[in-house]
């Protein structure tokens, strides 16, 4: 057995977990802040660590601490095994789905090809569909084992909704199969290329598939406007009505993980995945020094500017305690990070012992970093889009939801599949 390989796989897994989980607090913060922004109120702005509030970013930490230390109430009449199993299923399935999504191009180091993803399965897209379809068990089991009518109704709704929208999602994904001629996500991203005009969304069937996938992923993640399984105004809290403390937290996190996963797949399929717009991996590697200087220099500039903005908001004596110093602390932090960015961008090659960006390995690593950053940025945008929709659209009625799924999305999806076939044929015939 190749132990180095195993270690690399383990590292890949950990990296993936870190990537997803680090999104969670930011998303929770964004959700609360975004809701507040849309509802024209300040949102969380009180929790602080030594006076640093980071515009409410400290609030998620407080939430987690609260949930961890709350009493974990287990109602008497629940069916214990499944009651305990359900949140684990929900969370783990959500995480596992991400395994095939590439975060960056393949790295060639030391004679190894290391994909920046857990597994570059041949049947990647099918894997996503397969594992995503398991997510419903967490909700169903939660709903059923709670022995509560509301929870059961939530579970039923969830399962029906998931089954219905999985079909539309499958059809949308099938269109992408056709367009790219592969089910391997890595190949798909490579096929899309760095030019935004080559991305999945930039063709008629691709655009239709994108819209369908977007709608279906709202349903799959049980978020507004399709949050009928929890529907707090109808079913109290739906399937997780009997959960509290950390079990509840797991459902809560699962929802955000699902969001990230959905956004990640969306980006991968339709928006060029990790591709930096107009700059291909080869370009980065070939012009690594210049790229590094531009990218890190630009980042440093932005950070410095942000620090200046923070300093400009310094109002001594406003609160009369530590909070008064917050802008200064933030500015200093930002400037330190900017310094770090400058160092990363300009020092390699100058300092002995560290190879410069002209070195192939360094160039590859640079490309990976930039691509992961790009990917994170794209995912963040779509995650924000999810939040945005949640706080602006009202909830669908259940029959409307079903009608949308079966009577509109399904026929459109089938039509789109045919269209994609024609499209592929036509573009191969006339090289469109």
């Amino acid at each position, binding site marked *: *057995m190749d132990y180095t390989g195993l270690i690399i796989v383990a590292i890949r897994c950990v990296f993936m977990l870190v990537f997803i989980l680090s999104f969670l607090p930011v998303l929770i913060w964004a959700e609360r802040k975004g809701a507040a922004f849309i509802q024209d109120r300040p949102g969380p702005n009180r929790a602080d660590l030594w006076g640093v509030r980071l515009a409410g970013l400290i609030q998620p930490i407080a939430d987690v601490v609260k949930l961890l230390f709350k009493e974990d109430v287990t109602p008497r009449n629940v*069916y214990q*095994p*499944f009651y305990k199993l359900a949140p684990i299923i929900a969370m783990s399935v959500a995480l596992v789905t991400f395994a095939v999504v590439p975060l960056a191009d393949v790295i060639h180091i030391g004679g190894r090809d290391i994909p920046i993803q857990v597994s570059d*399965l*041949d*049947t990647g897209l*099918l*894997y996503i*569909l*397969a*594992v*995503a*379809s*398991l997510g*419903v*068990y967490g909700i*169903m*089991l939660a*709903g*059923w084992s709670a022995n509560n009518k509301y929870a*059961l109704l939530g*579970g*039923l709704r969830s*399962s*029906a909704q*998931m*089954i219905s929208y*999985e079909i539309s999602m499958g059809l949308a994904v099938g269109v992408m199969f056709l367009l790219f001629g592969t*089910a391997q996500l890595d190949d798909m991203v490579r096929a899309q290329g760095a030019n935004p005009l080559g991305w999945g969304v930039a063709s008629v069937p691709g655009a239709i598939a994108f819209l369908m996938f977007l709608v279906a992923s709202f349903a799959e993640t049980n978020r507004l406007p399709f949050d009928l399984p929890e529907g707090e105004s109808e079913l109290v809290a739906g399937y997780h009505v009997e959960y509290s403390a950390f079990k509840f937290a797991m459902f809560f996190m699962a929802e955000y993980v699902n969001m990230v996963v959905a956004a990640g797949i969306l980006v991968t399929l339709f928006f060029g995945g990790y591709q930096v717009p107009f700059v291909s991996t080869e370009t980065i590697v070939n012009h690594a020094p210049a790229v590094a200087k531009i990218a890190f220099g630009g980042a440093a500039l932005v950070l410095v500017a942000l620090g200046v903005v923070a300093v400009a908001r310094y109002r001594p004596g406003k609160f009369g305690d530590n909070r008064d110093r917050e802008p200064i602390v933030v500015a200093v932090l930002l400037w330190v990070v900017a310094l770090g960015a400058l160092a990363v961008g300009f020092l390699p090659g100058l300092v002995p012992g560290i190879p410069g960006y002209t070195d192939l390995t360094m160039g590859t690593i640079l490309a990976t970093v930039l691509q992961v950053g790009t990917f994170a940025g794209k995912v963040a945008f779509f995650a924000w889009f999810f939040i945005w929709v949640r706080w602006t659209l009202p909830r669908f009625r259940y029959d409307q939801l079903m009608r949308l799924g079966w009577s509109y999305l399904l026929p459109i999806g089938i039509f789109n599949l045919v269209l994609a076939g024609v499209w592929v044929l036509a573009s191969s015939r006339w090289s469109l």
Partner: protein
Amino acid sequence: MFEQTMFYLFAIVSVIAALFVVAGKNPISCAIALIVTLGALAGVFVLQEAHFVATIQVLVYAGAIMVLFVFVIMLLNLGPEDLEKTPRFSRLKGAGGIFAAAGAALLAWNFVSYAARAARVGPGFGGLAQISQKLFTEYIIPFEAISAVLMAAVVGAVVIAKREL
């Protein structure tokens, strides 16, 4: 070695879960046990280089068929208490068990000697490309027939289950 270990692991898990399916008290437990069996078998398939089949196993069986089962069980709200009124097993449980065991023994006895080694398979065996290639050329007619079967099943299910037409 790794492969063998994994195979025995999956095989034991699947058999134990299957026993749960057959003997379980609660329909939901049975369903979950069956999902575990199916998952373990998907693992077995992966070990046999049947990647596509394994994925489809999870997608179709675990993701669709079993969701349907669980959905129906929940829809009919079949709890364990329903089963307490009547015994779980039919009158034939003794004879059925014996005959099934005899069947298993006979089958296994036939198979024990079947120790031929597997052929060496090339890269991409059991992958999407190979299967698609075959499915859309040699097996195109069964493939289309299957779509007709599924269509008929959809229509039939709707007609049977609808309260009034």
